[in-house]
């Protein structure tokens, strides 16, 4: 089971990809199929099982889109 859990507030995401660059497991990516209220492709977790809950993504996000939980 995944060590970490990430909650993404999709409507706030601006698709800047700063989180994707810092995720050690590279499991964050923009979702090309979705467009949120702000008009951006929001970020999504490609492989939730791999998340270690390090919160680097959350700390890097300029828009406080991500919350992180861990065991």
């Amino acid at each position, binding site marked *: 089971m995944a060590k970490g859990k990430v909650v993404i507030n999709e409507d706030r995401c601006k698709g800047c990809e*700063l989180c994707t660059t810092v995720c050690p497991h590279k499991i964050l990516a923009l979702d090309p199929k979705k467009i949120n209220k702000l008009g951006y492709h929001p970020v999504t977790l490609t492989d939730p099982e791999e998340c270690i809950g390090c919160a680097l993504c959350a*700390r890097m*996000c*300029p*828009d*406080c889109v*991500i919350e*992180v939980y861990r065991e």
Partner: protein
Amino acid sequence: MKPVFTRPRSLADVSTHYCPGCTHGIVHRLIAEAIDELDIAERTIGVAPVGCAVLAYNYFNVDFQEAAHGRAPAVATGIKRALPDRVVFTYQGDGDLASIGTAEIVHAANRGEAITVIYVNNAIYGMTGGQMAPTTLAGQKTTTSPFGRDVEVCGYPIRMAELLATLVAPRYIARVAVNSPAHIQQAKRAIKRAFEVQVNDHGFALVEVLSTCPTNWGLPPKKALAWLEENMIPYYPLGEFKVPKEAE
């Protein structure tokens, strides 16, 4: 599961007007975290600049004043002198603090005004569409330095942290960056410390934060982080230039 990272209470639960990937948002969060951790939200008053952060008052759950361009330190002085037991901070850009507001920041610092200054240096005038700032790097192209900043004509980028550290009164002066998780952690410590200095020592504290402006640098947000690392940090060294005496 336990929360590892949640939205700080002092950060208003709204979407900001900042461009995608603009690190102003990170700086906002770090300030909100410091306010939360020190539990001072109810006695904190913020002062917003004129610059991209002009609407900062919408983004914090604390009382706020919007200052004229460059005058945030004077406004903060007025607030602090009226209410000495409140925590007052300014949030200022490099055009605001290092250009038009030079006199106000130098003298607030020199008076040892017990305020906290968060100085966001993104080497450009973001709000007005990317004109040269006093901090724009040598050779950097902007809308008013279309051939790259010529240091012979308009001088060298100004290092405010170092300049202000020559003064006697300031208690804490540091430069940090928010272009990587590690730097962000450092930045967080510095910002918290800058509030502590005000709360505990009644002293002046300033943190210069190297920040990105993807829009006006003409770079995608990810590249902007790298540009900051490769171009700004070599010229604007990170570090603490002044620390409270007892901690030296």
